[in-house]
Structures are given as C-alpha cells and as structure tokens.
C-alpha cells in the first residue's frame, strides 16, 4: 500500500490539485438568479465544458507520447486546421461520403505526422525544428488548399449536414475522448511500444545499445499525434460546420500546457496519460469558470498565466521532495 502511494504520488497529488480547482470552481461559480442553481455544476455546463476542450485534450494524448520520447510537436495546430479544411472540402466539394471524408482527413493528419516523424528519425534534426517548419508549411498549404476561404458545410448538402450533426454531439465528442484516453493509457502502460516510448525519452543512447527500434518508435509517436490532430480537425470542422484555414493557431501551446500541467516532464521519460487527462480537466475548468464569471479577456490571460505556474509548481514540489 505504502509503495503504491509512493509510486503514484504524482498522480495522487495531481488529482488533489484537480479536486481543489473543482471545489474552487463551485465556490466561485455564479448561481442562476431564478433557480439558485450553481451554474458551474449544471449538467449542460459541465458537458459543454468537456466538449469544448475535447479537441485539445485529444491531441494532448498523442503529445504525451511525443514528449515522453523527449520530443515535441509544434505542428498540431496547423495540422488540425489542415484536416478540418480537408474534411470540409471532401464533403462540400469533392463529394465524398461521410466515411471517406473523415478517413481522408484523419489520414491527412497522419501523413503530416508521418512526415514529421520520418524527418526527425532519419535526418536526426531536433523535433522542435522539424515541427516548427511543418507548423509553418502546413499552415501555408492549408490556406492555399482552401483558397484562403472558410469552407462552409451548412449549405453544402445533406451529407454534410448529417456529418456535422452527428459529430458535434456531446456524446460523440466526449465519448471519443474518453475512449481514446483509455486506449492511450493502455498503450503507454501495458504494451511493448509504451515501454519503448519511455525508454527512448529516458536515455536515447542506451536505447540504441539495447537494440530498440528507435526510428519506428519516433515515427509512430508523431504519426499517432498527427492522426489525433486530424481527428481533432474533423471534430472542429463538425462543431463549427466550417473548415477554417486559420483554426488552431497557437493550439500547440494549449496542448503542451495540458500535458505539462498533467505532470509530464519536457525532458522526456516521465509522465502519464492519466496526468494528461487531469491536466486537460484543470485547464477546462479554469477556462469555464473564468468565462462563467465573465472575467475580461485580458484579465483571463493574466490569470491563466498565474494558474499555469501555480499548477506546475505544485507538480514540481511533488517530484523533487
């Protein structure tokens, strides 16, 4: 028992952090003037909150693996936009069926990830640089592809309507995230691949000496992240009924913040999917309560900065003590 506590200290304290912020949100929440209900706790509000954070949270699952290998992926925001535009074009201009359009969009994300991973693995260039370049390049590609326009689905026919009506449902968006979180948690903790991911981030050179398939692991984590960014793009497209080439600008930073607040070290080797889920919830609650209290946008930014630091400091004192 004691060793369980010790081993899972990071997680237990992360959960404690989540609990604190949850309680704080309840206390700070405005109440419905008429019914006296706590607005934050209303089912509608909670599910709205989860749905709006789903795309970033989904990408964060893959980013956790990337960061665990000691890498980083700055291209996810651009990839999200790219896949959102591909999905929208597929439905509205290329006349693909729902399934084909989604598949194409997600595969497009996977292709960006595959390219990132391959360049990182084969050229041995720092992931920051490769994914910075693809962040820039994919944004250009996306704008070029969309002809600098928002691709509208609302007026694009029945197939498109069925697509966005289905995928923008709360159960679908939240359900997909829950499902993927479970899959990735298993992937990381129960599989050979997961072990390799951690090993690579812990000691890259020793991984070579241990004969691990390093290139394949690297390619896999970036490709997975690309696929997830693609899915996030599809969901965003459905949710907004639009393929917007400027979607997801700076989303990579939100994603990384979620992962880091969840206790994963940017140095690689240390972290967990559960932590990332907790990180996503912390950020989601934070944004939601600031919105409910109608804090000004600029003040929100300042508060967000403070809370990120506080959350990570709490994380840190844990690991160092």
């Amino acid at each position: 028992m004691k060793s369980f506590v010790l081993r899972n200290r990071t997680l237990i304290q992360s959960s404690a952090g989540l609990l604190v912020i949850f309680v704080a949100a309840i206390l700070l929440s405005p109440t419905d003037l008429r019914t006296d209900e706590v607005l934050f706790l209303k089912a509608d509000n909670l599910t709205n909150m989860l749905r709006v954070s789903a795309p970033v949270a989904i990408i964060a699952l893959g980013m956790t693996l990337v960061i665990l290998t000691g890498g980083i992926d700055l291209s996810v925001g651009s990839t999200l936009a790219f896949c959102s535009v591909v999905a929208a074009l597929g439905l509205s201009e290329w006349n693909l069926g729902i399934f084909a359009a989604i598949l194409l969009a997600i595969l497009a994300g996977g292709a960006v990830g595959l390219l990132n991973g391959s360049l990182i693995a084969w050229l041995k260039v720092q992931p920051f640089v490769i994914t910075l370049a693809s962040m820039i390049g994919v944004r250009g590609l996306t704008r070029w592809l969309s002809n600098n326009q928002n691709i509208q689905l609302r007026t694009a026919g029945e197939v498109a309507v069925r697509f966005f009506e289905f995928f923008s449902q709360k159960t679908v968006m939240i359900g997909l995230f829950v499902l993927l979180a479970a899959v990735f948690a298993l992937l990381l903790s129960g599989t050979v691949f997961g072990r390799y991911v951690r090993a690579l981030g812990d000691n890259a050179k020793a991984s070579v000496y241990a004969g691990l398939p390093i290139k394949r692991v690297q390619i896999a984590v970036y490709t997975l992240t690309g696929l997830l960014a693609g899915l996030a793009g599809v969901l965003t497209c459905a949710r907004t009924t639009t393929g917007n080439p400027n979607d997801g600008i700076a989303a990579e930073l939100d994603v990384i913040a979620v992962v880091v607040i969840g206790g994963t070290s940017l140095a690689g080797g240390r972290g967990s999917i559960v932590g990332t889920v907790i990180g996503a919830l912390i950020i989601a609650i934070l944004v939601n309560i600031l919105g409910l209290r109608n804090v000004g946008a600029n003040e929100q930014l300042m508060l967000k900065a403070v809370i990120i630091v506080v959350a990570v400091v709490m994380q840190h004192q844990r690991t160092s003590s």
Partner: protein
Amino acid sequence: MTDTSTTSEKGPQPILRARNVGKSFGGVHALRDVSIDVYAGEVHAIVGENGAGKSTFGKILGGAIPADSGSFELDGRTVTICNPIDAQQLGITIIFQELDLFPNLSVAENIAIRNLAYSDRLLVNRKRMAEFCLPMLKRVGLDVDPGTMLGDLHLGHQQLVAIARALSMNARVIVFDESTSSLSDEFVENLFQVIDLLRSEGIACIFISHKMEELFRISDRVTVLRDGEYVGSRPASELPQDELIGMMVGRKVSEQTRAESHAAGEVLFECTGLRTRRLHDISFTLHRGEVMGLAGLIGAGRGELGKALFGLTRIVGGQMSLESRPYLPRSPRHAIELGVGLVPRDRKTEGLMMQMSVRDNTTLASLSDLNALGLIRQREESTVVERVGTQTRLRASGAHAEVSSLSGGNQQKVLLGRWLLVEPKVYFFDDPTRGVDIGAKHDIYDLIEQQAARGKGVLFVSSELPELLRCCDRILVLNQGKQVALLQSDATSAEEILRYATSQASQAVAS
C-alpha cells in the same frame, strides 16, 4: 559555524573527523552512525560491498547531499557542510564516481571553472588559464592541448582532467570515488604517483575502490563499511586480504583460481582482416564455449571492436562470420537479431534508463519474448525479473525501485541481467566488473563461465589483467588499433601482456 573543542590527548590530530553520520533515502538506511577519522598525509581507503554506503559518505563530505544526522570536525573545529561550495571552501573536494565535467568546454576551462567562480575578474584570459592548467595536467600525467574539447577525450583521460581540477583547488581532503575504475593500469600507476605526491604534501586522500591490489598498494589505513554501518578501521599493513574481505562481506569468499574451460572445437564466430576507422586488420576465431579476453591500454581499440561487432561503427574492410554465415550488422538491433549482444561499458550513458524501474530495465531488450499482441505479459515478466535478480544477486528494494536509487554495483547487475535475458550467441562484455564489489565480481565471473558452459562465445574486455587471466581461455592484445598478440592465458603472464600492450614496435606500422 566554528566551535573550538578540546584537543585529544595523544597522537596526531585528525584533520577531519566524521561523527555519527547517518543518512537514509526513503526507507533505505544508506549510512547509520558512521564515525571516521582521517589524518593529514594519509591515504584512507573506504571499502565495502556495493550499496555499503561509500559513495553516500563521499557525497556528504563533498556537500553534494546533506547528512540526516551527525557532525564533522575539521582541525578540531565543528563545521557544517551544506553544499559543494561549503565543502570546497573547507578544502574538501570529491572526484565523483560519475564524472561531473563539461564535455563542450575545453580541458583548460574544465580545470579552471571553479577558480573562475572565485575570481572577481570579468574577462577570461586564455593564456593565463592555460598556464594555470598545464602544471596540473603535468601532475596527473596527461599530455593534451588544454584547448581540446573535453568531450573529444577518452573517458579515462576525462577522469584525469577531473583529478587535475581537484588538484587545482588546493584541497586538503580529496575523495576519490572509484577514480581508477575507468583507468587502465598505466594510468592507475600514474594516479598513484600523484596520490603519493599528495600524501607527501600532507593532503588526506580518501580512496574508494573495489580493487584489492590497489588498496593494498596505496592505502595507509582501511575503513570497512557494511550495509551502511561502520565495521572497523585498520592499518592496511596489518590487514590480510582474507580478513578484509571477511569484514566487508561478512562471510568467506574463496578466491577461486582459473575457471574450467568450456571451449569446444566448433568455430562460432570468425573475424578476418576487420578494419574500421580506428582498427586495422583484426583476425581471430571464437569457438563455442570460449572466453576470449581483450587486453590493451586505453584507446587501444577494444571498445571500438565491440562497436564494430555491434553495428555501431562503420566497417571499412574485412569479413566477419557467425556460425559460418556472413555477419555484417547494420545496427545494434540487427546485431541482436543475428545473435550478438554487447554489455556496454558506461552504464549511465549507454546502459540504463535511470528513471525507469529495475523491472523495466531488465526486460527492455527482450520484451519480444513477453509480447502478446503488443501487450506485455505482466505476470511472466515479474517472474523473469525475479529470477534474473536472484541469478545476479541483485540488491534492490524491489522490482519497482528506480534504477537511479541503486548503488553503482547493483546498477551494473541490472544491466547484466538485461543481457542474460537476451541470450545472444556471442557476448561482448565491455568491462563488466567496473565498480563491482569483490563478492559480486566473482558472481560475474561465474555468470560468464555459465554462459560459456552453455556454448556461448564470450569476448571479455577488462582493464584488470588478473581478471582476464582468471576467466579467459585466450587473450587478444590490441595496441593502437592493431592486433599485436593472441595469447593462451595459461601460458602467459601479466607482464607479457603488458609488454605487448605497451610496445611501441607497432607504432611505425601504424602511421
């Protein structure tokens, strides 16, 4: 911070007294109530099994970690050591088991960096820095340009730079934590001359090592630690080796002689005219069950040979074959698939994942055996890890312990365990007993013999010649990347090997 205490009645005053020092990590007591006196001008050896607490004691002295309890007196005054700077200002310097140098800075900068810290100068004067370093380099017998990047030096030479830096600090107490473990004999001898010099200058040297001959060669007094407790201190001259080992281990370790040979007639591995950037024309055959030693000075190319066998360096010419099939590894992964395993020399950078557990590290290279549709068969894994742990006599708080919390020797055992599980046909052990205690050394010898008995071929690099003579059937001597001798170990001697290893004859051919 200072507090004069009464002078003791008789004998010379110890320069440093450690009183009732205690330290624990979580539940593990690394040190309990240890009191040691160190005198000026003595070489004081601290010995004990892996995990006995030697490094912990050294780190506390050097200010790298704080003690939980106990006190220190320097020249009879109570002092506190909270951080490395305290220690340095008190004149205590530690040369760490794990090097704490700057690979991307020059040799001169590495040596002078602490002095830069104390200078109030703004600009660095390269010339003065070089002038400052050269005498220190000379004292440790290292002949390199002070402007060389440290990372370009061999590990052994880096060790000497660390010592040169300690010398430059005008330390009064220097802790050598296994400083000789990465040095070949000539450098060891060199270092001992340096230590002799320091001793004559009245400097106290605390010398931590697992190498018995060295201990008796250099130390004046020996203190034994066991399981974090003080066992006793004795003058080295009055302590027979058997008794010392008994004090360390708590049991008798029979110093076995030459192991039985398992070499069979069948050729397992063959290497003809192998050439790489740094190796020239290496040819030998390794038979099933044969243990072949690789001897040579630092930089002779033994490690390079391992890299060549393991797909880590480009092969320029020659052929290799394994079980009569051509063998040309593209990468370590490929080499392992073909049946060659290499236990790297530097466990910290090339071997272990320090933040991962004993379990994860042990099975890392053989996960394919535990793989069920991508998932790891957890129960089987636990069994395997337990078995290997017993086999290597690993001492750890459990399979979930982080490897970074193990003592150096036990880390080495985890690494060995990993490779025992891989079961290659040919093993390349690069200095596997480095930093391993005397009991564990024999365990490793036994493990190697067991592998040979099972028909494996073993290549065994060591900088300790007695070890090679004890374990190997034949010994291949390398000198500046060339093969200079292939000796039958029961028909040769340490002197002969050394003669080949140091001969300059081959130099003409080299260039």
